[in-house]
């Protein structure tokens, strides 16, 4: 559960907590956050929590992971010490109380950031969540790339990706009528949003890249779903793709297999 994570890792951030005392740091950071909470009026706690909920919803529009740094700067301000507790209650509100959104902490060692993911399973019949045409076309492209990467063994060289997309009229060297600057969209926007990871190959000149699934993709979809999509396109059964089938069984078998 992601809700527990912020609390535990908060300790590492606090300069005051001694890094060596790992067993001690958890309780210490707890008390620190609790102390910060105790210094706030209940109404103030409520207000900050609601502010955070609203802030998360608004920032989610851009689909770029929301930085803890920004949350502290924009919402919590002088109460940033209480971040773990307020974040937990805001996550609870988003999940149970209101809209069924899950707050996920990104696994990034540089800085903590969060994304929102829909908790409610989607079906083709559920028509109440609509995407804009722009969203649809971009997500179509995301799905194509995720399929290619997964089917290609969870990684794909940029040259092969461009080569394949070109067959669909999406040329990264030319303006596309729907996507504009394709290279920028794929390598910058999708990567920043967490749909893709773009890793530079060592010792490559000119630089070559490997594409992998980003963290958001692992949260918003699964290998099984992507394989289903591919099977629809091919009109085949998932089991016919032996290695991919094994891969997804393996990932589902382990509790954190998606990562």
């Amino acid at each position: 559960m992601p809700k527990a994570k912020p609390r535990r890792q908060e300790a590492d951030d606090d300069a005051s907590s001694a890094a060596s005392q790992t067993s001690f740091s958890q309780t210490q950071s707890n008390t620190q956050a609790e102390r910060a909470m105790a210094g706030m009026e209940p109404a103030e706690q409520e207000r900050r929590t609601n502010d955070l909920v609203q802030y998360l919803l608004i920032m989610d529009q851009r689909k770029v992971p929301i930085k803890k740094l920004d949350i502290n700067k924009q919402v919590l301000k002088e109460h940033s010490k209480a971040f773990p507790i307020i974040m937990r209650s805001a996550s609870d509100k988003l999940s149970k109380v209101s809209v069924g959104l899950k707050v996920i902490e990104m696994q990034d060692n540089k800085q903590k950031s969060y994304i929102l993911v829909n908790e409610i399973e989607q079906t083709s019949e559920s028509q109440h969540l609509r995407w804009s045409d722009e969203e649809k076309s971009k997500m179509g492209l995301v799905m194509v790339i995720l399929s290619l990467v997964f089917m290609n063994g969870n990684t794909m060289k940029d040259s092969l990706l461009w080569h394949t997309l070109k067959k669909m009229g999406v040329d990264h060297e030319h303006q596309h009528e729907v996507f504009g600057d394709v290279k920028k969209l794929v390598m910058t926007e999708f990567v920043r949003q967490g749909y893709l990871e773009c890793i530079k190959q060592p010792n490559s000149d000119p630089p070559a890249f490997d594409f992998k699934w980003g963290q958001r993709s692992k949260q918003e979809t699964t290998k099984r779903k992507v394989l289903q999509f591919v099977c629809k396109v091919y009109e085949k059964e998932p089991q016919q793709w032996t290695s991919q089938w094994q891969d997804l069984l393996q990932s589902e078998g382990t509790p954190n297999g998606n990562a």
Partner: protein
Amino acid sequence: MNSVKSNQTNGRDEAEDDEVVGENMDILQPQQKESERRQIRQRYRDFIEDMQKTQHDLINPESDAINERLREVDELYKPVRTAREAALDSCALAMIANYGRQKAQALHTEFVKFQPVEFAEKLVNLFGSSGAGDMGNIPFEGWVQMGENIRPYFNRSPAFHFMAGSFEKEVQKRRPTPKEPKDKSSKDEKDTVPTQLRSFEEQQKNEATTAEVERVLAQLQKYYEESEKNPICFFEFILNPHSFGQTIENLFYSSFLIRDGYAKIFIDEDGLPVIEPVEKPEEETAHEKQKHHQTVVTLTPQEWKELLKVYEIKTPMIPTRTVEPN
């Protein structure tokens, strides 16, 4: 390739020689001739370059080329004694390892093999327009349709919107204020300096011309008085026997006198042009109103020489101007 191979045999020989001395000594004696080290590095660079060229052969699961390469680089390493060459060796090894990884990825064991291009073609068939001219292309509608189809596959959080819209982000304008005065001041400085200089030069020029015109007028008035107010022969007045250029200048300056009404030129009884100063301004204006001719006068060096002979001019009426150094 041949040169690389011969280099390799050399390298092996050297390595064998070294082994005679003893392996421990090799390690303890890093001293190696610079030329030898350069040779080793050259071999490594050739090797790396060659690997880059043959990259696709190396990662082909069907070929054994990468093992061959590994053996080759082992040979290359034998004469290496110092860190710099060893760094190249690790670079080459890293490349081989990288290619090995790619080779492993390229190896497909399953019965049904995924072909990216085939997948792309199927998508084009599904979502591309049926028009014959649109081969290998998915139009906007196709992408939208695909997006609609894959929506259930994503637990994407819906975009949050305010019912009555939200405030637009204000674009902060910070830049212009501090920058403009700087630009202006620098521009001003740049502008004023050259214009001042230019006008100064021009002024001087104008002044020089005006001064000359005044001098010529003074001369004319002097000779006019001397000849008891008889008109002066125009050619005698302007001709300078020492300089054709100064003659032309005199002609030029006297034309100003005529234009501004300080003198007049007319034809005397002999049919020759004469010049006399205009004394009274009132008379001058009346005169100017009466006739105002424009004439283009030509004077070639030949004509100038002839005129000098005819009029037997030895000294100029208008003194020769000293040439200003400019």
